[in-house]
């Protein structure tokens, strides 16, 4: 089932999905990956660090998320949280997503009914 067209869909929505996960509370890399895979792995496929981290770097560089490193004796974790501009972007993306879904659904349902 997986092909490059489906891959493009997944890739295009990952920023929004990651922003959404981070918007629900401060979180770190492994937790983001686990949440993503648990909730959407059956459709989006298993996310990997090689895909997730570069998106987090881009979002941070653009000022949509910020990070802080919290160190303990055994390990250190980088916690991400959403910024004000990140929340604005997420709202825009979610709003667009709703329109997009509706638009595509309408087009497809028209097509399947044989409409013009």
């Amino acid at each position, binding site marked *: 089932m997986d092909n490059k067209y489906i891959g493009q869909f997944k890739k295009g929505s990952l920023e929004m999905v990651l922003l959404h996960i981070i918007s629900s509370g401060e979180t770190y890399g492994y937790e983001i990956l686990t949440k993503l895979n648990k909730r959407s792995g059956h459709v989006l496929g298993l996310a990997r660090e090689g895909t997730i981290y570069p998106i987090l*770097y881009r979002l941070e560089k653009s000022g949509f998320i910020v990070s802080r490193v919290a160190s303990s004796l055994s390990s*250190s*974790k980088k916690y991400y949280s959403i910024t004000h501009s990140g929340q604005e972007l997420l709202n825009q993306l979610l709003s667009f997503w709703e329109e997009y879904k509706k638009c595509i659904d309408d087009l497809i349902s028209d097509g399947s009914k044989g409409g013009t």
Partner: protein
Amino acid sequence: MKDIKEKYISDVLKMLSVPRSKKREIARDLHEAFTSALEHGETYEQVIERFGSSDALAKSLSVELGVPYGKQRTFCLILGILLLIIGSVFVAIYMIISTTTGLPNSNLGIIGGSDGPTQILVSPSDGIDSSIVFLSLGIIAIILSIAFLIVYIRKRR
């Protein structure tokens, strides 16, 4: 087992064409990814299996970060240096040939009967001048080497 992790991360970093600060960040994040996974009961093997080979992870990171994959950049550097050496050698050969065949005395003859000597230059054959061939090849190699080195430097960012 810790060595496997260190070697894996080091292999990934070697293949990344990103600034040192970004490499440090990626190294830190990969260390964290390993530690977090182990804390959640995964084994080193399971983590590496999910990451994929060091080569695959470096490639994936490079693609997502929009930077060239490390091997391409190394290839540009090696080829650039090699062509620079070859070009320099060819230009040096050209210079040696042109200075030794300047107008040597052995190639001059004096035709008698005239008021002054008439110079007769004895040239090799009427084929292609080898010194020009070396010079042309040298210049081409140097131009190509500069192009490859520019690509190498530009890919660094």
